[in-house]
C-alpha cells in the first residue's frame, strides 16, 4: 500500500491512543482545526477534547504543563506547529524533561514526545526554517528520531510514544504529502522501529551516503545517478540522531572507505560534524580512502527568494560533487 507520511504519523498516533488511555496530544490547532498541517486529522472527533487539546500559543507554558503530566505517567505528545517554536520552550525540554531522570536518580521518568516539522519548508524564510537536529541530539537524556519515509514515520512515532523517556521527533513539512509503499508488517498495529538503529536504504560498495529526514531522498537520487557512472553508493538513513547508530556508520565506512554526509542544517557543529568526529575517533579512520565530505545547509539565515533558498539547501548536484571528490582518487587509480 502507498501511504503518505502525514497519514503514517496520524496512524501511529491514532493506534497508540487507542492502545493506551494515558496517551494524549496537545498543541496549537491540533484538535478542531485538525493540525496546521492536518497531521492530527480525525483524532479530535475520535477521542474528544479530553485527549486532543488545542492550546493557547504559549509554547513554554504548555510544554512545561505536558512535562508535569508526564511526571505522573501520562504520555503526552506535544505538537509544535513547527520545531522553530520549540525554542520558546527550550528550557523546559532540556532542563525539565531531558535531565529529569538523571537528576532524580531514576525517581522521575518523563515519558513524553515532542514532535513537529523541522527545518526548511518552501519560502518561509529565516525564522521558520531552522533545523534542530544537532542541538537536540547533543543532549543526554533525550532521544531524537527523524523519519524519512512513511514506514520510518509510523514505526518511529510509535516507538517514541511507547518510550518511557522524552523523545523528540523531527518531521519534515515537505514530506507530509509524499507517499511511500508500506509493507504489511508496517501496516500492523505492532510495528515499532527501535530507536537508535539506522537503516541501510541501499547497500553499496564504493561510497557511503549518510543522511536523515528529507535529504535521505537526495542521497537516494544521487545513488541512482551514480549508478550510471559506475559508482555503487550505500545510503544510510540515520532514523535516530540520539542515540546515533555508530555501529552502522562505522561498518559502512569501513566497507566503502568513503563517506559523504548530508544534512540541511547549518554546518557548524552539525550532525555531519559529529560523524566526522566518530570517523576520527574509531577504527573506521584506518579504512578511509578519502576524507569525509559533508554537504550541509549554507551558513546563512534562510533567505526567502526561491533561488537564494535553493542555493542555501543541499541539491543533488552538491551531493554528486562531494561524491566525485571523495571517489576521485579511486577512480583515477
Amino acid at each position, binding site marked *: 500500500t502507498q501511504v503518505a507520511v502525514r497519514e503514517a504519523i496520524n496512524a501511529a498516533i491514532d493506534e497508540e491512543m487507542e492502545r493506551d488511555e494515558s496517551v494524549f496530544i496537545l498543541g496549537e490547532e491540533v484538535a478542531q482545526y485538525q493540525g496546521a498541517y492536518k497531521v492530527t486529522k480525525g483524532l479530535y472527533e475520535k477521542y474528544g477534547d479530553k485527549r486532543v487539546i488545542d492550546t493557547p500559543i504559549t509554547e513554554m507554558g504548555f510544554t512545561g504543563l505536558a512535562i508535569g503530566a508526564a511526571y505522573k505517567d501520562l504520555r503526552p505528545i506535544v505538537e509544535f506547529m513547527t520545531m522553530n517554536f520549540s525554542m520558546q520552550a527550550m528550557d523546559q525540554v532540556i532542563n525539565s524533561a531531558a535531565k529529569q531522570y538523571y537528576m532524580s536518580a531514576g525517581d522521575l521518568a518523563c515519558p513524553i514526545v515532542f514532535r513537529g516539522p523541522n527545518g526548511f519548508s518552501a519560502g518561509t524564510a529565516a525564522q521558520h526554517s531552522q533545523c534542530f537536529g544537532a542541538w537536540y541530539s547533543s543532549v543526554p537524556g533525550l532521544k531524537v528520531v527523524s523519519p524519512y519515509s512513511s514506514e520510518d514515520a509510523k514505526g518511529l512515532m510509535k516507538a517514541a510514544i511507547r518510550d518511557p523517556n522524552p523523545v523528540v521527533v523531527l518531521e519534515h513539512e515537505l514530506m507530509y504529502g509524499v507517499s511511500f509503499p508500506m509493507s504489511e508488517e508496517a501496516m500492523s498495529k505492532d510495528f515499532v522501529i527501535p530507536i537508535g538503529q539506522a537503516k541501510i536504504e541501499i547497500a553499496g560498495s564504493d561510497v557511503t551516503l549518510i543522511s536523515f529526514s528529507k535529504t535521505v531522498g537526495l542521497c537516494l537520487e544521487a545513488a541512482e545517478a551514480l549508478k550510471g557512472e559506475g559508482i555503487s553508493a550505500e545510503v544510510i538513513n540515520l532514523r535516530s540522531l540520539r542515540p546515533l547508530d555508530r555501529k552502522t556508520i562505522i561498518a559502512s565506512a569501513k566497507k566503502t572507505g568513503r563517506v559523504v554526509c548530508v544534512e540541511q542544517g547549518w554546518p557548524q557543529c552539525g550532525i555531519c560534524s559529529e560523524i566526522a568526529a566518530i570517523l576520527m575517533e574509531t577504527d573506521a579512520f584506518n579504512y578511509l580512502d578519502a576524507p569525509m565530505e559533508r554537504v550541509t545547509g549554507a551558513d546563512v539565515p534562510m533567505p526567502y527568494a526561491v533561488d537564494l533558498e535553493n542555493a542555501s539547501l543541499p541539491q543533488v548536484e552538491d551531493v554528486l*560533487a562531494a561524491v566525485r571528490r571523495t571517489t576521485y582518487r579511486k577512480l583515477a587509480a
Partner: protein
Amino acid sequence: GPAVVFDLSGSFQTHNLETAPNETTECSKDELWNMFELMYTMRRMEITCDNEYKARNIRGFCHLYDGQEAVATGILQALDEKDSYITSYRCHCIALARGGSVKQVVAELFGFEDGMTKGKGGSMHFYNKKHNFYGGQGIVGAQVPVGAGLAFANKYNTPPGERMPVAIGCYGDGAANQGQIWEAANMASLWKLPMIFCIENNQYGMGTSIDRHSSHSDYYKMGNHIPGVRIDGMNVLAVREGMRFVKDYCASGQGPMYVEMMTYRYHGHSMSDPGTTYRNREEIAFTRSTRDPLEFVKKCLVDAEFATPDELKEAEKRIRKDVQQQVMEAKESAKPSMDSLFEDIFAKDLVSRSGSEFPPHIRMPDYAKSFWIDGKPE
C-alpha cells in the same frame, strides 16, 4: 476646509483610568481623505496579494490585513514618525504606511531585488528603520518585549521630564497570553516606559476563537494594574482619537498602557487557511456588511459632505489602477543576485550604515562553492 466633529460615543471602554478618550473628534476633509486613501490602498494591495499568491507568484506564508485597515491607519495618524512601531507577521500594510510603497511590498513578496528587504525576508519581514518601523516578526509574541525595548531606547534618549516618543507593539488576541508579553509589561510598568501594548483582537488566533485560547477575554484589562482602553477598531476616527489619548498618557512618563482594538480579519489566517471552517460565512458576511472599516470611512466622508459617492468611486478607480501599476512595476524587478546570499550576515558599522562585514568563510552546501573572504580556501 473647516473640520467636522464626529461622534465617537460607545467607541471606548477604559480600565484603571480616571480619564478617557474624547467622545467626539474633529476631522478635516484632507485628513479623512488621506485615511480613506491609505485604507483603500491597503485593501487593494492585500487583495492583489491574494490573487498573486493564488497565481503562485508569492510563496510561503502570506498574512493579509484586510478588515483591520482602520487599526493601523488610526494608529499611524495619532502617532508620528518619531514614535516606533513594531508588529507581527501581519505587516504588509504597516510597511506600506511607514515609508514603503505598494511596489516595494509586492516586489518583496515576489522575492525580487526591489523588494523592501531585497527578497530576503518575504511576507513576515518588512522593516524600515528610517521611518521607525521595526517589523515584522515571525515568532508569535516576540515583538512585544522588543517593542518595550524600543520604548526603553526612547526613554533613554529623552532628557528626564521631557515628553518622550512612544513605541507601540501590536499583537493578536492569540499572542496575548504569551508570557514574554507579561514580562515586558512588568518592566514597562516598573520603569515607566512609553510603551503601548496594542492587541488587535480579530477574534481568532488561527482557527481558535478567543474563548478557547484565553481565559480572560477583556484584553484591555490584561495588564492587571496597568491601565487599558478598548477601542472600536473598525472606526478609524475612534482609533485615531483613542490613540491620541493613549499616546499622551505614555509619552508623559506615566508608564505603559494596554489597548484592545476590536477588529476582524476577512481572510483566513494565511493562504492555506480558507478561514471558513472555524467560523461561518454568515459571521464574515455580517461583519463585512455592518462593520467594514472602509465603508465606514466612506460613509463619514459622504455624511460630512467631504465627498460625493461619485468622487469616491473615482478615487477608488484611481487607487486600483495605481496599485495595479505598481504591481506591474514590481514584476519587472530582477531576482536578487547570487552574491546577495553572502551579504547582510554581519553589519560593518552603525554610523555609516555602509553595508556588510563578511565572515572569513561562508560554507555552502557544496564546500567548493563556499565564499572565502580572500577568494580561496584556507
